[in-house]
């Protein structure tokens, strides 16, 4: 076994440890749980989870692929702005968009108040509109902030794609739409699958928006079993059962895709954007602006307004600056760790293809399929065990007492973020590597490059857009992360998300608007740094 295999195994082990510790908890047993679940919980929870995931899946795939295609293959007014603006909803956490819309669309909120004024209706009791607190509302809001998980990798693939196959399709008489469906879509399929899977896992494990909007998913059942009944073994059992289903679904998709090869090699002529005019251009502008307006502009303007009100009422807490630094610092460190680990594990699978390295890269993605708090609970014993070993070693070798080093220093947080979000890194990089022909690898090896050299000189430059994109999502996700941060942070340590949660726990959501706004701002920053991704030179056509 070489260095690559060892590295891949070690990385998989880091993610597997918390899962194993959860399995140990689950094995303690929970009497009568499954009878109760089967009778009273599962029928509704499974149905609602299925409806939610189907709805969100369709929505993110439709919005993500359409907009990615429009900005990469077509030219229309505002395209350059939309290219990055379409990413903005990523910066809005699900619990924030849920809260914002609940406020905006509430009977006494601005939308309905204005509507009643127009219609001349005095009391909200005389005009009852559908409530956003419903399954439909939940699908809509989650879809609006999660579609960038699809948009980003799919667009990266479209940008990396050669225009040749598409040109061939056109030459062979296919129309623009038909050649998109026949050529571009299949080529982007790994990216679409990876992006949609991320969005669905995020939707499935969401607890904030679901709580606000009154939707009961399986994850809510996990929480209830644990929190309301102190039955952690039972909660771990449900979480692991869900994990098994997710793993099975992902395996099915992979098997379905196995027979296809997506590699594109040789000289690449970039996609030449088709200039849209008239109604087609107007349609493209509309298709791109609606997700940005609803997923970002509306909730963000609401936050700006609320934050301004709040600053006038109560001023700004000076603690926010330190919390913003903590947030950016820890998200940054975790992103660095994730990118390095993801490159190593996907690189191993690519350069040393074997069942071992392939499984390692699958296992490395498990963390994202477990609800955040549950994963954090699985990490807790791992970290404290490590801490006890470190403490014992420090005592032996230095005679010093270091306490709980990982928990006390925040290293536990970086580990938790990495274990949870590694899937985003591996998924993104894999999807980016898929269209790169193995013949390029062979050429590099023939020219005397080592494996590491091939990775550095061939794969990294080609997949840079995909890596940057994945790193961006990881950073934003870490900045938004709440449950693991709450559980595993040191004393006296706050991030913006924990501050926000604290305010929400007090019921002073308005105070939270400022923290929420800074989270969104921190999320936007890297979006604007994506210049290399958007500024690719195109031949004028």
């Amino acid at each position: 076994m070489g260095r690559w295999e060892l590295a891949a195994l070690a990385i998989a082990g880091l993610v597997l440890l918390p899962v194993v510790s959860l399995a140990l908890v689950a094995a303690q047993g929970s009497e009568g749980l499954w009878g109760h679940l089967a009778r009273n919980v599962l029928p509704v929870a499974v149905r609602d989870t299925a409806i939610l995931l189907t709805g969100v899946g369709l929505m993110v795939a439709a919005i993500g692929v359409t907009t990615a295609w429009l900005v990469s293959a077509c030219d229309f007014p505002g395209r350059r702005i939309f290219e990055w603006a379409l990413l903005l909803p990523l910066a809005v956490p699900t619990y924030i968009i849920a809260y914002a819309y609940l406020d905006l669309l509430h009977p006494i909120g601005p939308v309905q108040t204005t509507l009643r004024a127009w219609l001349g209706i005095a009391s909200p009791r005389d005009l009852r509109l559908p409530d956003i607190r419903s399954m439909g509302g939940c699908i809509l809001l989650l879809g609006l902030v999660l579609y960038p998980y699809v948009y980003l990798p799919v667009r990266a693939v479209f940008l990396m794609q050669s225009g040749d196959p598409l040109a061939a399709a056109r030459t062979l008489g296919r129309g623009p739409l038909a050649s998109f469906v026949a050529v571009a879509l299949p080529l982007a399929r790994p990216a679409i699958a990876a992006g949609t899977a991320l969005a669905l896992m995020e939707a499935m494990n969401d607890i904030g928006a679901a709580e606000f909007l009154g939707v009961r998913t399986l994850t809510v059942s996990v929480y209830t079993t644990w929190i309301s009944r102190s039955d952690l073994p039972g909660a771990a059992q449900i979480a692991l059962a869900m994990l098994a289903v997710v793993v099975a679904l992902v395996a099915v998709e992979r098997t379905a895709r196995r027979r296809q090869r997506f590699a594109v090699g040789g000289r690449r002529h970039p996609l030449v954007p088709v200039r849209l005019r008239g109604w087609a251009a107007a349609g493209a502008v509309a298709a791109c602006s609606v997700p940005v307006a609803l997923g970002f502009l509306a909730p963000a303007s609401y936050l700006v307004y609320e934050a301004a009100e709040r600053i006038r009422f109560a001023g700004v807490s000076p603690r926010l600056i330190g919390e913003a630094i903590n947030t950016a610092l820890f998200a940054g460190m975790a992103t660095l760790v994730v990118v390095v680990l993801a490159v190593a594990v996907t690189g191993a699978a690519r350069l040393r293809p074997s069942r071992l390295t392939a499984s390692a890269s699958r296992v490395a993605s498990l963390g994202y399929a477990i609800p955040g708090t549950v994963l954090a609970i699985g990490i807790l014993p791992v970290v404290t065990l490590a801490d006890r070993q470190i403490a014992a070693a420090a005592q032996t070798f230095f005679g010093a007492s270091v306490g709980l080093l990982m928990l006390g220093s925040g290293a536990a947080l970086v580990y938790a973020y990495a274990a949870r979000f590694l899937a985003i890194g591996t998924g993104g990089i894999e999807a980016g590597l898929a269209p790169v022909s193995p013949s390029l690898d062979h050429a590099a090896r023939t020219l005397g490059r080592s494996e590491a050299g091939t990775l550095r000189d061939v794969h990294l430059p080609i997949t840079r857009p995909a890596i940057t994109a994945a790193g961006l999502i990881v950073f934003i996700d870490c900045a938004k992360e709440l449950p693991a941060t709450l559980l595993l942070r040191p004393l006296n340590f706050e991030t913006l998300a924990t501050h926000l949660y604290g305010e929400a726990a007090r019921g002073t959501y308005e105070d939270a608007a400022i923290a929420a706004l800074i989270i969104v701002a921190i999320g936007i920053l890297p979006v604007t740094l994506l210049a290399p991704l958007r500024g690719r030179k195109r031949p004028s056509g």
Partner: protein
Amino acid sequence: MHASKLAILVGTLAGAGAVMPVAAQELNLYTTREPGLIQPLLDSFTASSGVKVNTIFLKEGLAERVQQEGTASLADVLMTVDIGNLVDLTDRGLTQPVESAVLSEAIPANLRDEAGNWFALSQRARVLYAEKDLDLSEFHYEDLADPAWKGKVCIRSGQHPYNVALTAAYIVHHGEDAARTWLTGVKDNLARKAGGGDRDVARDIMGGICDIGIANSYYVGLMRSGAGGPEQEEWAKAIKVILPTFEDGGTQVNVSGAAVAKNAPNREQAVQLLEYLVSDAAQKEYAEANFEYPVRASAGVDPIIAELGTLSTDEVNLTEIARQRKAASELAEEVGFDN
């Protein structure tokens, strides 16, 4: 394993920023109660005792974290916002008995553990918010299931600790079967899905979505005093508050409370903090800043809360309510309360 090297590097970096409490005159508080609410109390404790208080606010997993930290745990005081979680900490053996004349004098016997494992620090009542013009002056919790209220009731999730405790109290009063019938009836009366927070009840009444709802007493103070901002003051104007009772009992009251951790490195300071929190000054602060009912009767309540009427606390023992927690949570799932 370059990951572990990185972790150590990261740890060292972060260690510079995070506080690693080692000095003797410090005390570590693990709390599910948002520290902002009690920060003024902690500050005055530090001012009078010279003991610095480090806090970590945990939502879920307080017990799990303390358990895993084991003998190396830094936790001195554990604080929760409901009786169920407080008793749970004791049941798991994470607390230690404290004998303190100050505590047993200040806190009535029914609001603390017999063995001294936990102590209630403040009380909050589960009250009725009603549309202000509604012709209604008294209310029983049992009435929530009355079909007359069909489509008119708002309430948060049946799994929230506050509602779990209410259902548990119902079980203690009337038995599990009656509680099931009641909860089904309440579910049928809901105007919207169970969910959101307690203040949403007031907002939804103002928005015409419902006429009545169950929520905690102190939110009335937070909204009416303007502490929650001008918007919430408006919400509070749309409602009136009734102190409901059980037909054969009083108003259901939950507690926030604290315990000294089993492996507390600063036990002495921990007891000192608890004793401070039940002092007259601190109990006044609970009442005035947080609009809670103090456990020390002599501290009195805030005028806004006094206006709600005289509280006649339900006699049911808190420990009994905590014991019915699991049954209450399962009932909520059985009747599909949150579906």
